[in-house]
């Protein structure tokens, strides 16, 4: 079983569509506990990513990761740019110079991306950040591979990301702008976790 670069590109295209569909919702979540620009920033970033992918058509996983990561870093801004950017830079460099990435190795690349996000943002699980969706998703992908096929692993990862996203509702923000709110951050879903759940929904669609 392998993940091809064209599947990775399809992943980004699908995510771009999902971000556009949920743009207002992401911004509303951000308005509640942040500064109200998450949907706009993510849409700007992934529109740029899809445009770049279409024009440069990377053939190898490392080139894909670099292109996506650098585009996000230079077009999103805020905290999301460096965080999602670091995720794809690490994912790409770990996946390596391959046109088809063995699934075991792809799981490893997802884990490297997660480690990059944690290093950059210094957030831990239950800090009410994107890590709350990302970490369970990456772990579930590995678990899924042990018992099922690629599509199953991706679906499991997507479900885990959604559960992680929903759990942020009852968490107290310890990182990012929402942490300024203290207890007033309770009862709201973290926008970064929400977009991360969409990212894995797109992955499940691309690998179905």
């Amino acid at each position, binding site marked *: 079983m392998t993940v091809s670069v064209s599947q990775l590109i399809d992943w980004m295209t699908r995510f771009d569509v999902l971000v556009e569909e949920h743009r207002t919702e992401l911004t509303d979540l951000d*308005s509640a506990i942040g500064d*109200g*620009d998450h949907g706009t920033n993510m849409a700007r970033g992934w529109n740029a990513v899809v445009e770049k992918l279409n024009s440069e058509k990377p053939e190898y996983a490392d080139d894909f990761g670099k292109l996506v990561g650098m585009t996000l*870093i*230079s077009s999103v*801004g805020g905290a999301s740019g460096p965080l999602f950017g670091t995720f794809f830079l690490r994912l790409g460099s770990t996946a390596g110079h391959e046109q088809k990435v063995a699934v075991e190795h792809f799981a490893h690349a997802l884990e490297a991306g997660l480690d990059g996000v944690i290093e950059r*943002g210094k957030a831990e699980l239950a800090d009410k950040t994107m890590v709350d969706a990302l970490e369970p998703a990456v772990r579930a992908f590995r678990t899924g591979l042990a018992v099922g096929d690629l599509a199953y692993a991706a679906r499991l990862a997507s479900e885990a990301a959604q559960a992680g996203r929903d759990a942020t509702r009852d968490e107290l923000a310890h990182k990012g702008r929402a*942490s300024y709110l203290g207890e007033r951050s309770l009862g709201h879903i973290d926008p970064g976790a929400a977009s991360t759940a969409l990212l894995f929904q797109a992955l499940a669609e691309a690998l179905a």
Partner: protein
Amino acid sequence: MKKLINAPSDVLAESLVGLAAAHPELRVDHVHRVVYRADPKPHGTVALLSGGGSGHEPLHAGYVGFGMLDAAVAGEIFTSPTPDQILEATTRIDRGAGVLHLVKNYTGDIMNFDMAVELAGAVAIESVVVADDVAVEDSTFTAGRRGTGLTVLIEKIVGAAAEQGRDLEELAVLARRLVASGRSMGVALSSSTVPESGKPTFDLPEDEMELGVGIHGEPGRERVPLASAKDTARMLVEPILADLDFGGVPVVVMLNGMGATPLIELYLVYGEVSALLKKAGVSVARSLVGNYITSLDMAGCSVTLLRADDEILGLWDAPVSTPALRWGI
């Protein structure tokens, strides 16, 4: 939404076009959204760079010029600039003696400035993070205090010190000392509206105000009934005085408007602040009243206090020539 704009997505780009037209003494790199001095500093002097999300005008581009910043990097509205922008500004203004980054304490700003430093390679960079907002508890359970009004005072004072030819290390030490010596607190009477979102960032009923509001319209910690200027001034000054001792030294005070509060009200509030400080035994040496770090069209104000000494007052009084601060020249 009622704004004097052409299209929400073009606000920043078109505002920079206007800034360039109004200030021939500045230059604008419209690709990287960097505003820099037309006449750079002499070779061998340390350059000062600040930047952040837009929407806080005149911060930061309005403070580029002699005696303050060498360049400012503009992010999208309320969004940190990106590492490539910051890197471009840093290499552009480096005069061989290094660059001091003045960064407001927001997660996004910190990450993007950090990544720019990682990419900068040969240029010597010191980063100083401004975190002065007493509304936020400085603890391991938060991202730390936000950088607000004190940023303006630090850009002025450290800018003056940089013109004197001090080295990078000395300037960083001075800037960190200033960070430790200043505190701010703000209040919002209405929310700002980000053009691309088109609606107020938060709902604030007519009879309430948001105490401890941030400069991005992010909610504060407490919503309180709308109070008189006298009581509001007390709610702003008391937490600052409770957080840091401002006795026995000359103090610099800034009463800052958030963007939609008229100057007549700002002066009225400053009168209350001044009286409160006098009563508390705080001796005000210098004061600044006006819109210096705004939050788009938010109504409200913030108070910043800085513990000074003769050296700091000397640097404060030193000549400055920027779009938003100009004296002694």
